[in-house]
């Protein structure tokens, strides 16, 4: 009786093993053929639901075929097969030798997946065991980005604190920004010369934060222009920017008590095409000869063409962008340039409003934290490297982990 149970169990285990390991079947069937270059299959294949995703990724990891770990490795690569809901296997990836992982990014929440990996030689495919069936899960929070959240919270919290302080009457200091000191003078010059002011908001749409910064400064400039009763003209290359520009100037004229002086013709749309827009604006410059040109927003290859034309007609030019590649041209051809962050600080500086000043101060808290961490990190990395102090290596590793954006 005991012998019969043992035989039955042995037969069962062999049949299960044969079902689960197509690799063995292959090996047994083909091992006798000496023309085949037989390789061992990968081992320890596991499939894991990817952490903190929307439920569309499964991670696969394996130990490569032993024949892939030798100097004269015979493995030419790996094929990854996927079985969805107990259906037929599908080839989903062809990978090079030495690969030990794969990410299946085409999964769905309502399906069950199983995988196997085939090690390939010139004439043989050694299949691994199939993974256990797995389904994906959706996570609502991405804890990989907890430090990003914390830093955003600190900066955001600082902004709120400073805005509250400014509203209570606390004076918030902001250092002088040279280009912005010249705004009133530049508008005054246009008034004295009886010429218009040209405001160019860049060529990006409202989904670019530089355009938003440019329009915020436009609000302040328009207020001064309305006070001085000067003309402003704003050519745009995006319809939404045109609409936002009109709203901004209209609000500024209304705030200055001169809504009757506002006209929709102050802001116009030409074309979305980059150089078509440039051709039109250049034409406006040489025909209208504005006394002052503001170039504030996101600029690309057109920056030098516009700035050089403004320089050619003798306009005083105040430019600002956060695009490093275009800043050199503005610095070369304009009278004042707001470099990167200064463009974003400009509106707060010009308006002096608690909301904007608080925001600027909050950003400074972020910069202060960055400076402290950089100094600490460099000191730790240097000591760690010079004297091989494991603790310092750990500190650098921890800081790198905190500031990793993965």
């Amino acid at each position, binding site marked *: 009786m005991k012998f019969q149970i043992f035989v039955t169990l042995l037969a069962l285990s062999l049949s299960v093993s044969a079902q689960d390991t197509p690799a063995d079947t292959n090996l047994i069937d083909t091992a006798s053929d000496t023309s085949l270059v037989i390789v061992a299959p990968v081992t320890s294949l596991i499939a894991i639901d990817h952490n903190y995703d929307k439920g569309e990724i499964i991670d696969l990891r394996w130990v490569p075929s032993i024949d892939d770990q030798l100097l004269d490795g015979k493995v030419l690569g790996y094929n990854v097969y996927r079985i969805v809901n107990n259906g037929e296997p599908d080839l989903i990836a062809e990978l090079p030798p030495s690969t030990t992982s794969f990410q299946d990014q085409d999964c769905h929440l309502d399906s069950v997946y199983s995988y196997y990996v085939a090690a390939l030689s010139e004439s043989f495919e050694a299949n691994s065991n199939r993974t256990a069936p797995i389904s994906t899960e959706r996570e609502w929070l991405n804890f990989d980005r907890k430090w*990003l959240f914390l*830093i*955003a919270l600190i*900066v955001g919290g600082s902004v709120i604190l400073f805005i509250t302080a400014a509203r209570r009457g606390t004076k*918030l*200091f902001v*250092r*002088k*920004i040279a280009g912005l000191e010249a705004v009133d003078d530049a508008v005054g010059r246009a008034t004295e010369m009886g010429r218009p002011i040209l405001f160019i908001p860049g060529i990006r749409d*409202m*989904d*670019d*934060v530089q355009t*938003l910064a440019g329009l915020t400064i436009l609000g302040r400039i328009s207020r001064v222009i309305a006070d001085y009763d000067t003309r402003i003209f704003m050519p745009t290359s995006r319809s*939404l920017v045109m*609409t*936002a520009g009109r*709203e901004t100037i209209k609000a500024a004229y209304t705030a200055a008590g001169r809504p009757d002086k506002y006209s929709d013709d102050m802001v116009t*749309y*030409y*074309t*979305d*095409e980059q*150089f*078509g*827009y440039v*051709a*039109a604006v*250049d*034409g406006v410059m*040489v025909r209208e000869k504005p006394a002052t040109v503001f170039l504030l927003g996101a600029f690309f290859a057109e920056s*030098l063409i516009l700035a050089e034309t403004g320089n050619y007609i003798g306009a005083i030019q105040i430019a600002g962008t956060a695009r*490093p*590649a275009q800043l*050199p*041209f503005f*610095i070369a051809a304009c009278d004042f340039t707001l*470099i990167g*962050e200064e463009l974003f*600080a400009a509106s707060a500086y010009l308006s002096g409003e608690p909301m904007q000043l608080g925001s*600027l101060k909050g950003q*400074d808290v972020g*910069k202060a934290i*960055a*400076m402290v*961490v*950089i*100094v600490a*990190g*460099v000191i*730790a990395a*240097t000591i*760690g*490297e*010079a004297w091989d102090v494991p603790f310092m290596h750990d500190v*650098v590793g921890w*800081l*790198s982990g905190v*500031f990793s*954006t993965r």
Partner: protein
Amino acid sequence: MEAAFEHFRLWLAAFLTLGIFSFLYKDNPWYKLSEAIFVGISAGYWFVVLFWDNFFGKFWVGAGDYTMQWLASVFTGGESPSAEGVDLMLWIGAILGFLMLLRLIPKIGWLSRWPLAFIVGATAGLWLINYIASNVMVQVQATMVPLFSTVFGAGFDAGSGVIIGGLVIFLGTFSGLVYFFFSKAHTGAFGTTARVGVFFLMITFGASFGYTVMSRMSLLIGRIDYLLGDWLGMIK
């Protein structure tokens, strides 16, 4: 016929190219004509592209067509259309876009501010995280470099390069941050550090200037190649 059209295309392109170049002399009717053609055609082109890509390609295919069919089925009692590939969220964008058009009706034109407010708010929120991640965290992580190298040896070897590179990265980033710190006046040691930051910025801009000018030269060469090669056939 095709050859004649090709000739016409070549001559027209050359005529317009030279018209734009004529601006280098001064503003003139030839430039004005080229400019007007460029602006007019490109504005029309972009209207068509945006209409077919966004309104038709995304909204109508993704939600509009399905909604119309569904409404028809409700009113006629027919079979509901298949919802496969339908994304009704696209209606949010369509409604916001429609609100923009209300500017044309002065009495309710104020409704067009809502989509603007939505775009501005969403942009600010999205960019806050992007900026913190890419401009702050990645930069800080990349700047924590050792100012010492264990492969340091005699002469200007790889170790010296590592140390100098580390110093440039650290000093450049730190002094640049000091320059862009707005809560303290640029005086004393703080001001000196900020000036170092300005030096780093200017050196970077100088290098960038040269690099970009060279890429612009290649654009000019492309146009001259067209004029002398494709048009006049002087370059084979």
